[in-house]
Every structure is written in structure tokens, then in C-alpha cells.
């Protein structure tokens, strides 16, 4: 179908942009309701303390204050659920309550709430609440927290260990390391990040006593899951008692997937007070109370033969999970990390051991890439360490170990039964090298060194896992995910021929309203303008698990595609009936049904939709209307891959690292809208490079966040970057009929090792073998001064 292929794959402009660019889109902060009250939350200034008593009497008397509550007032509300109980976490689960009752384990935990006629009054009254704390010693470092004598956060988690998890086999890996020609050991830190979406979190809850029903607006990437968790797990009421709406979302990056205590608090307050209650997070609150990402301390041992063949990889990681567990925290440093440590390479022996650790810091959960950036950093640094040790070209070592195209589907063993779907790793690398002009670069680098200028190049040949996940796999006991991971869609062709798609997936910057419409338009042979895509409201959309893990296209849009096939089948039956032809003689092409070979005698999809809706003359047994709902449970995950190359120059005087070139070749399978994919890739690279060079959350030893504002936490600016040089190879996945893999996270996953490898390459004349992120000027300067490498 020529027309269809044209729409699917074309760079049409995003249909959601006009409302965003003109400022007409409505965010949570824009919602007004009659009688709306405003809440402000008192947060613990201590990282670890017992709450001895709370005096709210003065605050309650403040003008405009409706109510003041503490944790004790909500003792009947369950703590937040932990939905991904990987490893042995089960017995050690400690999650936040709407307000903490007798103990806080991180700075920023909520201890009291004021509800007032406006937010200013509520904020004023917070200052009048007196909390008597008994301050306890704190620990913020995940490795130190497991050692004898460390402050203990939770009685059910001795040595602060929330979970212990392994994958691979220890004895064969140890043996392979013993037998290896060389073994390289390295300790590396994947520092904590603060997601920093432009829009902070917020929630409005409205309770109707007569029906015992809530309507809740919240900044969520997964409204259906929020409804399920709040009703069934936190309040113990039927799911039907709540409607959740995500308005326009100003960026999530993972941090808006989770069920946060503030959302449940608003629901509880509205039920108690009988008026709608709103809370909008301030930026300062966002930095301490919204989830963070990464925060691994890792020791690796990698064994190789003298020719560069990698024979074993052993990884031991302390993953900092914060003071309490966020919704899916345990799954990130386990399933999404350890299982991807083979990267793009055949590594016969891998063993990964992970401690998930409680510390007196903010909660850590999925942040763009979620586990895979950490895994990619480990393996892509490991390859460079091997190359460095053996004096080999890092490109050659990559090539030597690549999984070859004919080996797919490839079973890296540690994936617990899943197989890499498709890949042409060398092809992507070759294209990237060609864009770089590798040989010329090495000459330029040598010349520059003679002049005392330090250039470096870094490679990252990554593979990631997305399109999560086959329910039967993610539901395996070892994985611990507490649900399925399919997606759903409903497609309705109205009487007028206009199409309404409702999806359980949620769009907050990914462009679903455009790319899904392209698939519909392409399949039905209609204009994109005749398709509308609705999402983000549990009323009127089928259940879906939400948008994260680059799964909306590879899972959610496949559900749409499957419904379209069923609608086309029905249109063919009805079209044949209208043409008085036998169903087996007709075809559906370019939006028309006609008898094979006679396209001038045809019925358009619009005519057929009209006939289906009017139902004056339907074939015997056919129901009116073109309407179909699909539930798609993927048979496998998808595995995008590619090569990123970064070229840097290090300023000898200041230690500043300047990105001179950034080349990204990504293979995300079939592409529906190249412009949207490029946008995702660019944004991802920016976030990944930012981790490599600038971003990093820092807590002091008492658990105070030192980087608690945008004045200290360095999110990148546009002028920090050169123009990215991007291109693609296209290896469709056999996993789904669209051939799509997923493109939301490749940039963050691939980029950190590309940058760090480049810096290490630049600093090779100084004997540098590794440097931890963020590679700030003072760190590099110290190396250049000859102290600390």
C-alpha cells in the first residue's frame, strides 16, 4: 500500500504543538474548581529522626486555615504499595505513608499538612507548627550503610539491605576470570540524578460523599495504574470509585510514574473536608520529595584474552534506594540493570550481584533509561578498560566481541529466557565511524597533543531493552513485578468516517497524538486530520499500564494496529455486501474496498463506516458500527541499539571539557515519524551528556541535599552543546507487526560512556584509566595538576 507507507514514516509536524506553543494547553496548575482549597505540606528538615510530638494548635488558628492534620489522623490509610518486589525485597518493604507518623528516614518526608483558603495562608501556617524531633544519626552512602555500625533505618531490614539480587552464574564467572589472560578491576560511581521536569508534581482531589466517588487530577504518566493502586491498595475501596485524569504534563522522565504520598493525601483530605483540595509542588519540594535516579556504587572485574575477546564480567553493585521504597524502585537496579550487562557482546560468563540499600536520602526510582544507562555505562566502560589494558583500539575490541547479525535471536542467558530480537551492531558502528572520519581524527589528535592540546574520542555501542514486556516473563517469580505489562486500545470509526482512538497509554511529550494517528491514517487510507487520539483519563479509555520504558509504540500502538486489522476485516465484509460481491473476492486498499482488479467500482471506508452505523443493510449476523478493542501482550521485549561517538577537548588550564562533536547512530526499528524520533534522541543525549559532565545530586553526611535548587543543580543549557550529528540504521523487529522498537531513552542510555570514554582518551597522556561522573572541571584540573587520577 503506497499511500499507507507514505504516512507511516513521514515527518509530519506534531499535532499537539500548537496548543503547547500558544500556551493554551491546560496543566494541573491551570485547573480551577468551585470551592477549591489549597494544601501545603510540612516536611522533615532532618534526614533521620523520631517524631516525638507535633503541636498544630497555633497553625489551626491562623486566618484562612480550614484544617491541620498529622500522620496520626491518617493511621487508617495504608502505606504506599511497592509494586515491583524484585529479589528478596518482600519481607523488607518500607514505603511512605501519606504523612509519616513516628519516624522520618529522609529530609523532605511529609509530617503535617495545612489546608487553607489559599496557598499563601497554608504556607504561613506551616511555620506555626511545632514538631519535636529526636534527631538520629544518618547515613547517605549505600555501601557504608551496609557496614557494621551504620545507623539502622528500618527494623525489618538489617544492615539497611532492602534486597539482594543476582543474575548469571558465580562459579563459572570466577573460574573464567581466573583463566583469563588479563583481568581489569575498576570501581565506578553512577551518581544520583534529579529528574527536574519543567512542571513539578501536583494533584487535585474532589470527593463526592453521596456516591463515595473521587475525581483526581494528577501529574501522572500512568493514570490507570494510579487509580488501581490508590483504590485497591491504599484506600481499600473498589476501583470503580475513582476517576483519574492526567492533564497536560510538563515532562516526566520517569519521576511521574509513581504513586506518591501527596496524591493519596489529597484524596484523603478531600474525603475528610468535603471540598476539593489541591497541592502543587514547589521546585524546592520537587528536589527533595520527588524521586531521584541512578546512584550506584559498582565494582567490576572483566576478564579477556590477549586478543581482546572478553571472557567474563563480574559486577557488584550497591544501589541506593533512599529512605523508603518508591513504587517500582526494586526493579530498576535488578531486572532493568543486571539483565542487560552483556551489552552488544557475546560474553560467555556474567555474574551480577546487587544490594538495594536504604539510606537517609530521597527515594530513588526509574529515571529516563532506568537501569539500562547504568548497565550500558558498566559494559561500555569495561570494553574500554580492556582495550586500554591490552593496548588495543577500543573500536577493534568492540568489533571482536559483537554479537553477529546471524546470531539473532540471541540469548544472552542472563535475560531470564528473553532473547535479543534483531541487531546489526557493526553496521551502526561503521556508519558512525564514517561520519566521524576515524583515521583522520587519530591524526588530528596526535598533532594536537604535540601542541599541548588534548582531544579525545569515545565510543558507546549500546543495546537496550524496551517495549516491556511479555506479562508471563515480567510476572516470573524472580522478577517480582506485581502485574501484567500489556497495553490496550479502542478504535472507533464514526458515522462520518472520522476515527477516535482511545488508548490506555499516556502521552507527556512523546507525540502519541501524532504518531498513533499516522498509523491509523496509513492503515485505513484516510487523512491524519480525520483521526483523534484520546488518552490520560481513566473515564473513557481502556486500562493501560502507562508510558515509560519506551513502550508506548512497541506495545500500545501495536494494540491500535491490531484493532485496525480487525476493523479492516469487518469493513471488507460489509464492503463486499455493499458491492454485492463475495467477501473472498474483495481487497482493502488505500481506504477503499473493491473487487480485486476493479478499483473503479469501490466503497470508501467513509461510506462503509456510514453504512455500518446506519445499519439499514448489514450482512446477516453483523453488529452495527466499526468499533474494536484490542489487548496486546508482546511476545518479547524489543532491543534498540546503535553507536554513539563523542569528541571532546579538555582545557589544560581549567579542566573544562568541551564537546566538539556528538554523533549518534540509533536503530530503533521501523520509524513512524522521524522528526519525533530525532526529538527524543536529542533530548536523551542532552540528559545523558549532562550526567557525564554536570548533573549530580549531593547530600552531606547529615542527609541534607546540597544541590537542592536550580542555582546549584546544573541542568544543561542549549549553548553547552554542538549540533548533534544523527542518523539511523533500520533493523525492524520481528516481535511486532509494525517492526517498531522504541526510541524514548536511547539517548540517555548510550551517551554517558561515550562522553567518559572520550575524556579518558583525551587524558591518556596523563595515565588516566577511569574518571567518575560528573566530570567537572575541578576533577579534571586535579588530574592535570598531577594529583589524583
Amino acid at each position: 500500500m503506497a499511500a499507507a507507507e507514505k504516512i507511516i514514516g513521514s515527518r509530519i509536524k506534531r499535532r499537539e504543538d500548537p496548543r503547547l506553543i500558544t500556551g493554551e494547553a491546560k496543566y494541573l496548575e491551570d485547573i480551577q474548581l468551585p470551592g477549591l482549597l489549597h494544601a501545603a505540606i510540612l516536611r522533615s528538615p532532618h534526614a533521620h529522626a523520631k517524631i516525638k510530638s507535633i503541636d498544630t494548635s497555633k497553625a489551626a488558628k491562623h486566618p484562612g486555615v480550614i484544617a491541620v492534620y498529622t500522620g496520626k489522623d491518617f493511621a487508617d490509610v495504608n502505606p504506599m504499595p511497592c509494586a515491583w518486589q524484585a529479589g528478596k525485597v518482600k519481607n523488607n518493604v518500607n514505603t511512605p505513608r501519606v504523612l509519616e507518623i513516628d519516624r522520618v528516614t529522609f529530609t523532605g518526608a511529609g509530617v503535617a499538612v495545612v489546608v487553607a483558603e489559599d496557598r499563601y495562608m497554608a504556607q504561613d501556617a506551616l511555620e506555626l507548627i511545632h514538631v519535636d524531633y529526636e534527631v538520629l544519626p544518618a547515613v547517605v552512602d549505600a555501601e557504608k550503610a551496609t557496614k557494621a555500625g551504620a545507623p539502622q533505618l528500618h527494623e525489618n531490614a538489617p544492615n539497611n539491605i532492602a534486597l539482594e539480587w543476582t543474575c548469571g552464574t558465580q562459579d563459572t564467572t570466577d573460574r573464567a576470570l581466573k583463566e583469563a589472560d588479563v583481568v581489569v578491576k575498576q570501581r565506578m560511581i553512577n551518581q544520583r540524578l534529579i529528574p527536574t521536569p519543567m512542571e513539578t508534581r501536583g494533584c487535585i482531589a474532589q470527593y463526592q460523599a453521596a456516591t463515595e466517588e473521587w475525581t483526581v487530577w494528577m501529574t501522572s504518566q500512568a493514570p490507570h495504574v494510579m487509580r488501581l493502586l490508590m483504590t485497591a491498595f491504599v484506600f481499600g475501596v473498589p476501583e470503580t470509585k475513582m476517576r483519574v485524569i492526567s492533564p497536560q504534563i510538563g515532562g516526566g522522565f520517569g519521576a511521574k510514574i509513581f504513586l506518591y504520598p501527596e496524591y493519596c493525601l489529597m484524596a484523603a483530605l478531600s474525603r475528610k473536608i468535603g471540598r476539593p483540595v489541591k497541592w502543587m509542588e514547589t521546585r524546592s519540594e520537587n528536589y527533595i520529595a520527588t524521586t531521584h535516579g541512578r546512584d550506584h556504587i559498582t565494582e567490576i572485574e572483566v576478564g579477556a584474552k590477549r586478543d581482546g575477546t572478553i571472557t567474563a564480567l563480574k559486577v557488584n553493585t550497591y544501589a541506593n534506594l533512599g529512605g523508603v521504597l518508591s513504587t517500582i524502585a526494586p526493579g530498576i537496579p535488578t531486572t532493568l540493570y543486571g539483565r542487560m550487562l552483556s551489552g552488544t557482546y557475546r560474553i560467555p560468563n556474567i555474574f551480577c550481584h546487587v544490594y538495594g540499600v536504604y539510606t537517609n536520602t530521597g527515594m530513588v526510582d526509574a529515571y529516563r533509561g532506568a537501569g539500562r544507562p547504568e548497565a550500558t555505562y558498566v559494559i561500555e566502560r569495561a570494553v574500554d578498560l580492556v582495550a586500554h589494558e591490552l593496548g588495543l583500539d577500543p573500536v577493534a575490541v568492540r568489533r571482536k566481541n559483537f554479537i553477529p547479525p546471524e546470531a539473532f535471536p540471541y540469548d544472552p542467558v542472563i535475560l531470564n529466557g528473553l532473547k535479543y530480537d534483531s541487531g546489526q551492531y557493526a553496521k551502526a558502528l561503521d556508519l558512525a565511524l564514517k561520519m566521524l572520519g576515524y583515521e583522520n581524527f587519530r591524526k588530528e589528535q596526535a598533532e594536537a597533543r604535540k601542541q599541548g592540546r588534548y582531544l579525545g574520542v569515545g565510543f558507546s555501542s549500546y543495546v537496550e531493552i524496551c517495549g516491556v514486556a511479555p506479562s508471563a516473563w515480567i510476572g516470573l517469580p524472580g522478577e517480582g513485578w506485581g502485574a501484567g505489562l500489556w497495553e490496550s486500545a479502542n478504535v472507533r470509526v464514526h458515522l462520518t468516517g472520522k476515527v477516535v482512538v482511545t488508548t490506555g497509554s499516556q502521552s507527556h511529550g512523546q507525540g502519541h497524538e501524532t504518531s498513533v494517528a499516522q498509523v491509523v491514517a496509513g492503515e485505513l487510507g484516510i487523512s491524519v486530520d480525520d483521526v483523534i487520539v484520546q488518552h490520560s483519563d481513566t473515564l473513557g479509555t481502556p486500562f493501560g499500564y502507562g508510558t515509560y520504558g519506551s513502550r508506548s509504540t512497541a506495545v500500545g500502538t501495536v494494540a491500535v494496529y491490531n484493532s485496525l486489522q480487525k476493523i479492516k476485516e469487518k469493513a471488507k465484509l460489509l464492503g463486499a455486501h455493499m458491492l454485492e460481491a463475495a467477501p473472498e473476492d474483495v481487497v482493502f486498499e488505500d481506504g477503499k474496498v473493491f473487487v480485486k482488479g476493479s478499483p473503479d467500482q469501490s466503497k470508501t471506508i467513509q461510506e462503509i463506516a456510514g453504512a455500518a452505523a446506519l445499519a439499514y443493510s448489514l450482512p446477516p449476523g453483523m453488529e452495527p458500527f466499526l468499533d474494536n478493542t484490542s489487548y496486546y501482550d508482546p511476545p518479547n521485549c524489543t532491543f534498540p541499539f546503535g553507536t554513539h561517538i563523542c569528541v571532546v577537548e579538555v582545557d589544560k588550564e581549567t579542566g573544562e571539557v568541551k564537546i566538539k562533536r556528538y554523533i549518534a547512530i540509533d536503530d530503533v526499528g521501523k520509524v513512524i515519524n522521524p522528526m519525533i524520533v530525532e526529538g527524543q534522541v536529542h533530548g536523551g543525549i542532552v540528559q545523558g551528556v549532562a550526567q557525564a559532565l554536570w548533573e549530580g545530586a549531593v547530600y552531606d553526611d547529615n542527609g541534607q541535599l546540597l544541590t537542592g535548587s536550580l542555582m546549584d543543580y546544573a541542568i544543561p543549557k542549549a549553548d553547552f552543546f554542538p549540533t548533534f550529528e544523527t542518523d539511523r540504521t533500520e533493523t525492524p523487529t520481528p516481535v511486532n507487526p509494525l517492526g517498531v522498537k522504541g526510541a524514548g531513552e536511547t539517548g540517555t542510555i548510550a551517551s554517558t560512556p561515550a562522553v567518559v570514554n572520550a575524556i579518558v582518551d583525551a587524558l591518556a597522556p596523563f595515565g588516566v584509566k577511569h574518571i567518575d561522573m560528573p566530570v567537572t572541571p575541578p576533577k579534571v584540573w586535579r588530574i592535570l595538576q598531577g594529583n589524583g587520577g
Partner: protein
Amino acid sequence: MYPSNFDYQRAASVADAIQKGSSDGAKFLAGGHSLLPALKLRLNEPESLVDIARLDALKGISVTGSSVRIGALATHAQIAGSADVKKHAPALASACGQVGDPAVRNRGTLGGNLAHTDPASDPPTVVLALGGKLHLQGSGGNRVVAAEDFFLDLFTTDLHPGELITAVEIPSIGQAKSAYAKMAHPASRYAVVGVCVVLEVSGGKCSKARVAVGGATPKATLSAAAANALVGSSLDTAALDAAAQALSADLSDVMGDVYAPEDYRRAMAGVYLKRAVRAAMG
């Protein structure tokens, strides 16, 4: 980000501003780009704000005799774009052009910046190096204070309570060369270190020099040692290295933080001195 309650008053004239500003707990509001963030974090809870932003008497940039007079309300963007400032005090135009981002430069004022004296600010360093004078007006009358006597410490100036900066007067650099070189913090874009040099050169030799440092130190600071290392030299590499060393050694009170520790800032003062000299000599 919700400030506590305050009264808002708009000043009708300079005299009115001074009268309103003299009451307890009053604060002047100019561009609001230092004051409002502090209010929102409740680090500052004034009882009333006296808005001076519309007082024409505090606006404008003019040249009188051999100096340029910059009204306290001149914005960073106006200063950066002013032909008069570029001619007579080019380092100040350059520094103001490096303040924050365009939004900050379009709202923030020179008077507000100097009154606030954030240690990481740019203009104080330059005004100090250029030998600027601050014109102040308060209930006790008018006075003129040299920049050297105005900046006292971290966020602390010689301003009396209720006193207003009305203008800043900067002597024209004439034939001298000058430049401001800054290392910007990647998050805030404030100065991690900023160095301003003013150099007189005759017969290929530096005959006079002034060197001021900011960002690294609690307040903008002049370094005679660094200046002396430059004077008499031909500003060659050896002289610059010596001056950089002299400057790093001269700074008594260097600050450190999570991003840039004390020893790094000290070293960077020297590096940016060299960069400023090279930029000045063009």
C-alpha cells in the same frame, strides 16, 4: 514558592522612596531578580517593598566630562548595549552582557546588583577595577562612596538603612585597556571566578595596572600584588604566569563549595587573570 505577607508601595519620587524606605522592615524593589527569589524562599521577609522601578531620575546613561554616569535602574542589557559604556567602560558592558541569561539581563539593574553584592556577581568586580564611585542618597543627605569603600563583605555594603544608590559614576578608561574574564557556574551562570583588569601600556610595557577578583572571594577584591607583577613587564607569558601566581597567593579568603573547591577557585583566579589580560590586549 510562596513569600510571606508584605505591603507593596510604589515610590512617586526619589524623595518619596527615601521616606518610605526609611521605615522599619522596608526594602527597595528594583528588578527583583535577587530580591524576589529570596522572598519566595522566605530567606528574606520584609514588611514592605518600596518599588523604585519607575523612577525616571534613576534611569539613563550619560557621559559627563571624563566619566560615564549610569543610573541605578539601568538594566544589565541596557548597559551591555550602550555605546557610551562600550566606549568608556567596555569591561562593564562586557560583564553585564555575561550576567545570567537574557531574562535576567532585561530585568536586573546595576543598582540592585551592587546593593545586593552577591559574592558571585559580576558587576561589583568590574566597578571596583574601574575605580567607580557610587552616588547614594538617604534621609541624611547625599554622599559619594568609592567602590573600594562600598563593598564590605558577603552581601554587605556601606549602604545605610533606607539609603538609595542613585547612580554609579565610572571614570573613562581613556587610552587604557581593560577586560573582564569569567568562569560561569553551569547551573546559575553566576561567576565561579571573575577577573577584571585595567592596564595602561606605553612603549610596549605595562605602566599601570588594576586587578579585581570576584566570585572566588566573599566580596570583590583588588589585588595590588597581581597588579605589581604586571607593571613594568611587557605582559609576556612569564609576566602573566608571575601575576597569576601572585594573585592566587594574594587572595586571603577564598570560598569553596560542592562545585568548585577553594584550591580550584584560587588557581582559576590566576588563569582568568591571564585570560583577562590577553583579552584586554586583544
